[in-house]
């Protein structure tokens, strides 16, 4: 994700005043109230000295030229899909979040926050679709397809039985996602998200590869999975090249476009993150237990060495 930091002169861009009261996306306010803010803005902006820094998401290009996936995915498709649809999501999100507390958050945080546990807020669709499309372009490469290798192949064979069975499941998910959406290969670490339940005995068996499908802009980040591969099955992704023939599009994607290198490196990162998170949680647990006995010790010192304890 590329987040460009742009310095905006206070006088020229009346819409990006940093002293503007933050619109509360996360507090249920969904539309700005321009009347009120215009007057506040004018006053605070003319008095302000120096530039305002606002974060602005930029449209990231695919890691190959727009014609590089021909003939499997046409240049025309890339021109519209990336140049219009993906660009539109970026432009629209920027308009929605400017001047709000979402403005300087990383994209993944914006996605989780605006998903709002299912009670979706307006910026969600744009934010998630930006992420999804970045991830999609990077899931493909010119001369792609073939088979995965190394540890990725091992895990696929372990969790699906065989590479062919995985392909079947992935194709089925992609074809049966009714309406618009995505199909994914994801790495599922041992997370349980039931209220504040924790998996008390995390084991390596809980960590596995899964195929999932999602509607519209939803993606597996919301379920705390690590996405490894995706295919866009919104009609705009394949209609110019395949029209109604979604199964043919899916086959072409699997046989000619998938970048298994990208999937492998994402798997490595996902595994490392899962391990890191487990260690972090173990550490926190230990700290909690140690912290209790520490507090008792401090209390004992307060009476005899009051100066020292204050310094701490």
């Amino acid at each position, binding site marked *: 994700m590329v987040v460009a930091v742009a310095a905006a002169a206070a006088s020229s861009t009346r819409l990006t005043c940093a002293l503007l009261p933050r619109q509360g996306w996360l507090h249920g306010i969904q539309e700005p109230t321009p009347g009120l803010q215009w007057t506040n803005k004018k006053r605070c902006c003319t008095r302000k000295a120096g530039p305002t820094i606002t974060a602005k998401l930029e449209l990231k290009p695919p890691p190959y030229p727009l014609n590089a996936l021909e003939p499997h995915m046409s240049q025309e498709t890339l021109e*519209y899909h990336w140049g*219009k*649809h993906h660009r*539109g999501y970026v432009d629209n999100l920027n308009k929605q979040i400017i001047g709000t507390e979402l403005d300087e958050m990383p994209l993944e945080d914006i996605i989780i926050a605006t998903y709002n546990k299912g009670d979706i807020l307006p910026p969600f*669709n744009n934010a998630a679709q930006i992420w999804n499309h970045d991830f999609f372009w990077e899931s493909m490469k010119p001369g792609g397809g073939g088979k995965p290798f190394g540890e990725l192949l091992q895990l696929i064979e372990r969790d699906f039985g065989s590479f062919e069975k995985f392909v079947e499941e992935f194709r089925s998910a992609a074809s049966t996602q*009714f*309406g*618009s*959406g995505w199909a994914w290969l994801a790495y599922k670490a041992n997370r349980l998200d039931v209220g504040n339940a924790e998996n008390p005995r995390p084991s390596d068996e809980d960590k596995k590869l899964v195929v999932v499908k999602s*509607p*519209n*802009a939803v993606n597996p980040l919301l379920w705390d999975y690590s996405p490894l591969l995706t295919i866009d099955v*919104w*009609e*705009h992704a394949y*209609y*110019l090249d395949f*029209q*109604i023939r979604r199964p043919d599009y899916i086959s072409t994607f699997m046989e000619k476009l998938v970048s298994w290198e990208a999937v492998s490196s994402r798997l490595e990162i996902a595994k490392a993150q899962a391990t890191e998170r487990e260690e972090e949680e173990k550490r926190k647990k230990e700290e909690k237990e140690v912290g209790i006995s520490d507090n008792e010790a401090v209390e004992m010192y307060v009476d005899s060495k009051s100066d020292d304890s204050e310094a701490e």
Partner: protein
Amino acid sequence: MALRSVSRKSLCLGLAVGQVRGLQSFSLPELPYDYGALEPVISKEIMQLHHLKHHQTYITNYNKALEQLDEALAKADSPSIVQLQSAIKFNGGGHINHSIFWKNLTPVREGGGEPPKASLGWAIDTQFGSLEVLIQRVNAEGAALQGSGWVWLALDKELKKLSIQTTANQDPLVTKGSALVPLFGIDVWEHAYYLQYKNVKADYLKNIWKVINWKYASEVYEKEIP
């Protein structure tokens, strides 16, 4: 107990039931105009794909799901009965919605785009202020719809009120309210416009009013509110 009576019924009626159910095989309704008749608003290519491929596929899959449902019912196979519901909803809904859609459109030379008069025209003016306002609102709903779905001008036949509704994917209008009758629907799935309008859904929505069949909408309205 219920299980036993179902299987006894199936034994008695056996083939007869299967044959009766077999007659409920759905088929593609004819388009009431030529494929090119809605040009330049909707291209011939889109109409052909939309009618002969998309709608036909919904019907084929709907029939298949119903056949499977028939078998599952005969065996009292509840898991299958329940599991088939989504395929029935999706494909059956697709058949229902598209069957209505072809009647909602008509070539300009056959009155496409001619504003509604009589009771429907009056109801629109009363409830929305004007046809222009209705159009604006429908277009706004259509533009805001995320993913795939439909936008409808609905008549609540009990409250005798018009409203604008949207449904997701191929959900028919009744899923929004059992008293709702569709006066017309606009398909905003990408397949309905992409080859011609690409990502500019707003242009499709702006233009489709030139071929909306208000006469048919009025007939439906007057049937419910004579």
